[in-house]
């Protein structure tokens, strides 16, 4: 049995039952699926695993749902006049004609632009990926109460949607960017989170799984989807190498490039090529371009920084952000020297969230040091250490400043 079998089965069952019974019953559906999985745990060891496990789980959860909807006290009011069989499919968001795949359809439903992204993420992790509340809280580094709040907000919104109905045909193209954004965010949570390495891989894998689901369907097979897949596979290739055997974070130039996953790299590059077919250029294209340059560089010294700068310029055009400009400045410093790096940031007033982050302070500390401004470098250095989000990052920064070796700044932020 695949390691995530129960989680993924849960996602598929919830999606399918929601299509059949309507999103307004999402909670009852989740309870029924939970009951079916529990029944499997209790029955399968005694009677042996059924030949078709999904069919077994579907039958049991379907029956549990019918029982619950017929007799459930909580929902008696809603259903006093209609049996579930008589609930027409048209009450559901009508994606069925366009998206035969229920899971994909549910993904589009979860990525509701009227919800805060945090809620979209939470409901996707719950319904599509089958994570429990505690597991979501652990992976997103928020309190369980916050997860409950986000889920409850999402459920309310989805119920409202269900009662209004929403036109899949008209909404599909409009919603794809939002779906990509949520998948990207999911991946970023996993990839950039420096706090719980064992858990991040889960989020990255789930993001890749959902993106493949999207790419495999005519409705989602779009250059932007391919670019996002390229980006995620390319980063994924380097994920394990970012950590030493003893669990320390490694700088880019410290990483053993032989530990990069060549097959992931190849898949990423193939998607990058596919993403170039067509005239779309998204932020994912630019970010995948940067990841590809790092992935293709035979060594840190041989990185083609000029191409990376060009990608950052493109990224800045499609998705302007001071964070991207900060990264760009690091690449500029690698090519033209630290003064040019500092000059690239001149006049850029970072928003509070970025100025208060260790990243901003760490990059400036480095640039100032290399420009021969020891006092300013020290100030920034101390700020970076103070703002480090975890001991692992603090260790990395301390090591970074001790080494004080020029021309390595990109390593800090990759």
């Amino acid at each position: 049995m695949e390691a995530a079998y129960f989680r993924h089965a849960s996602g598929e069952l919830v999606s399918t039952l929601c299509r059949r019974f309507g999103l307004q019953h999402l909670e009852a559906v989740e309870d029924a699926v939970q009951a079916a999985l529990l029944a499997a745990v209790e029955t399968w060891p005694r009677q042996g695993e059924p030949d078709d496990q999904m069919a077994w789980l579907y039958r049991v959860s379907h029956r549990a749902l019918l029982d619950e909807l017929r007799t459930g006290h909580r929902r008696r009011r809603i259903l006093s006049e209609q049996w579930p069989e008589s609930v027409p499919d048209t009450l559901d968001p009508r994606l069925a004609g366009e998206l035969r795949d229920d899971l994909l359809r549910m993904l589009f439903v979860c990525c509701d632009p009227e919800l805060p992204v945090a809620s979209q993420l939470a409901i996707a992790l719950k319904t599509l990926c089958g994570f429990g509340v505690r597991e979501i809280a652990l992976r997103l580094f928020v309190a369980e109460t916050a997860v409950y709040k986000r889920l409850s907000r999402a459920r309310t919104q989805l119920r409202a949607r269900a009662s209004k109905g929403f036109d899949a045909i008209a909404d599909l193209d409009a919603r794809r960017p939002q779906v990509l954004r949520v998948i990207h965010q999911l991946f970023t949570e996993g990839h950039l989170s420096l706090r719980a390495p064992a858990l991040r891989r889960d989020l990255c894998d789930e993001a890749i799984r959902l993106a493949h689901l999207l790419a495999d369907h005519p409705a989602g097979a779009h250059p932007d989807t391919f670019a996002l897949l390229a980006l995620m596979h390319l980063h994924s290739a380097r994920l394990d190498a970012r950590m030493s055997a003893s669990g320390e974070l490694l700088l880019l130039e410290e990483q053993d490039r032989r530990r990069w996953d060549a097959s992931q790299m190849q898949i990423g590059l193939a998607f990058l090529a596919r993403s170039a077919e067509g005239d779309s250029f998204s932020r994912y294209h630019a970010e995948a371009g940067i990841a590809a340059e790092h992935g293709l560089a035979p060594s840190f010294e041989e990185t083609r920084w000029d191409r990376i700068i060009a990608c950052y310029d493109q990224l800045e055009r499609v998705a302007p952000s001071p964070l991207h400009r900060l990264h760009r400045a690091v690449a500029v410093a690698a090519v033209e020297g630290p003064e040019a790096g500092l000059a690239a940031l001149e006049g850029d007033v970072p928003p509070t969230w970025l100025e208060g982050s260790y990243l901003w302070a760490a990059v400036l500390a480095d640039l100032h040091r290399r420009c021969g401004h020891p006092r300013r470098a020290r100030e920034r250095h101390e700020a970076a250490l103070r703002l480090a989000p975890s001991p692992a990052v603090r260790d990395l920064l301390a090591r970074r400043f001790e080494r004080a070796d020029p021309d390595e700044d990109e390593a800090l932020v990759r």
Partner: protein
Amino acid sequence: MPKFLCVQRSLPASDERSAPSPSEMQAMYAKFNAWREEFSDQLVDLGGKLGDGRLVTEEPVTDGPFVEIKELVGGYMIVEAADLDGAIEVARGCPGLVSARSGVEVIEIQTPGG
């Protein structure tokens, strides 16, 4: 070899939102299978869950003092072991059987001359 009846007794489930997640259930499933494998020679009958029941006596039937019995008895199984301690070892190893809210009664099944 003597056989033992194991009866699970648990406190009524609390209403807290502590339902296991799919991953946790899969882990339970894996543990249960591992346990079953380890003691396969001794597991005579894995039994099952017990549902509603009623005590039948000469007296008119009421739910009477045994009303709580359906909440307390969760399931049963039959194991084989050299002695009570051996049977307890098998039962104790069963995942989820012995916990803060659940315990197991291990009773020897006496057979004449056995």
